[in-house]
């Protein structure tokens, strides 16, 4: 049952990702900070610091990787520090961490590479105190690019691990 919920949440997140520019929440360092401290917060909107939208946009839901690597960059670690802090505060959320690769690789290898990337993010969050049983991983390999050009500009954004929230009181 729990699995069902997370699948639905993934779908929601993916479709959100598809209709808004990836740049909106593609900032590795997180923190565009706009609208964070406004009174009269709309629950569930990006201005609600307990919302998934806030996590996605203000905290930053993704970290990026170098070609064929699964090592976390310093910027990625900063993002994950923010994710860990948020998850430790918002304990009613669980998450699925999706690992992805760019198209420059064979299908099976990219699935394995995506698994490494997702696990690197998960291991980091666990090291910062997030309970392991709140974090699942899945690899999509090269199956779900967010950017479709065949250039490094796109590849760089596709080599990612995305923390997709499930659960929570608002959505």
């Amino acid at each position, binding site marked *: 049952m729990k*699995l069902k919920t*997370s*699948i639905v949440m*993934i779908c929601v997140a993916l479709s959100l990702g*598809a209709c808004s520019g990836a740049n909106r929440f593609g900032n590795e360092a997180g923190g565009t900070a706009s609208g964070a401290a406004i009174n009269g917060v709309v629950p569930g909107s990006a201005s609600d610091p307990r919302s998934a939208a806030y996590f996605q946009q203000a905290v930053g839901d993704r970290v990026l990787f170098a070609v064929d690597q*699964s090592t976390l960059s310093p910027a990625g670690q900063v993002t994950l520090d923010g994710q860990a802090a948020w998850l430790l505060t918002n304990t009613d959320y669980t998450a*699925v961490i999706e690992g992805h690769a760019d*198209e*420059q*690789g*064979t*299908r*099976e*290898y990219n*699935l*394995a*590479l995506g*698994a*490494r990337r*997702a*696990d*690197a993010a*998960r*291991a980091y969050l666990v090291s910062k105190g997030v309970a392991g049983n709140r974090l*699942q*991983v*899945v*690899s*999509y390999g090269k*199956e*779900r*690019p*967010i*950017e*479709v*050009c*065949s250039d490094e500009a796109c590849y760089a954004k596709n080599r990612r691990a995305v923390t997709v929230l499930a659960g929570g009181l608002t959505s």
Partner: protein
Amino acid sequence: MMVRVLCVLLMFMGVAPVLAQNGPLRIEITEGVIEPLPFAVPDLVAETPASVQMGQQIARVIAADLTGTGLFRELPASAHISRVTDFGAPVQYADWKAINAQALVTGAVNVQGDQVVVKFRLYDVFAGTELGDGLQFVGTVDGWRRIAHKVADAVYSRITGEGGYFDSRVVYVSETGSKAERRKRLAIMDYDGANVQYLTGSEAIVLAPRFSANGDRVLYTSYETGFPRIYVLDVGSVQRRVLESQEGTMSFAPRFAPNGRTVVYSLSQNGNTDIYSMDIATSQAQRLTNAPSIETAPSFSPDGSQIVFESDRSGSQQLYVMSASGGEARRISFGDGRYGTPVWSPRGDLIAFTKQSKGRFHIGVMRVDGSEERLLTASFLDEGPTWSPNGRVIMFARETQGAAGRTSLYSVDITGRNLRPVRTPEGGSDPSWGPLQP
């Protein structure tokens, strides 16, 4: 689906079958054919008025099969001098010689109800003899293409000395939608792209279907639970079941052992991917590799004793061979670049692979010990080779570059010649070529 093709030796009264031994009508495929062999296949003689159209259709498919190999060249009906109107009448060799037809295929067809009976003979025109015995095939009207493929297989086989591959099927992933919103579903088709049927929906991502050795089942990976898991699908009933897997793991890249009872696959746990095998009946799994590196894309040797796979244990993706029970592996790829998706040929002599080098992708073959590497193709993205049942042709997927990138199927000879698109109704990837059908 339920096509039964019977193969019966014809006893033609008064015509003793002549077997050409080392006759002039012979193609040695290994030498690579520079000049395709000219042949003629007139419309099959219709034994009833209702059989006329079928006789034309079957002749066209036979011609397409043979021409598609790149080894044969058809002399069109407009060039024919003789008309074959009686299957039993003597062949006018001089007329066929005059247009330089080296091989002549004649046939007769009789459609009755939903049954089709096809007889055919193959002639070595310049030797003035029949090559092999006349054969008769019985099938259903719906399965008429299979009969045509059977005839073409017999012709190909007699002239090349190799097994045929036309009466075979391919499972693959049918793709629609743009790159960012691609929808994938499993499909099965004849080797030439005809008779496509869809085996799954496209609600969940499906990847890399793999035929069993006898073609009765297909293994594939699906995300229908939200996580990649391996399914086994019965081709006849289209019933499927998921293979056992441990909570919190991902499994993918399955392939059958030649015995059809064991599956090898990759399992990812805590970010590490290794190769396992599982007995399908008992769900008993065994770990075959145990390394912190990526081990994936396993493929059995045809005798089932060895497994070729890819690993990045050296620091980059390379090919290795190990015993089917695991243990020590020896690296076989040493060229420039990365090697993946190895597939052992059905003859056991070669391994096909995908190679990535200097920003290009190639399909290539090498001997089992890694020697004599040959690249057969080059493009922005070629991937995922699969072998024809006779080990002479490789099918693979090619994806074009850029935002409008599209994936489609191609085939190429192991000589590197005869690169051809395989026409499918939608985009296609991850082909797996099944066995020659009985």
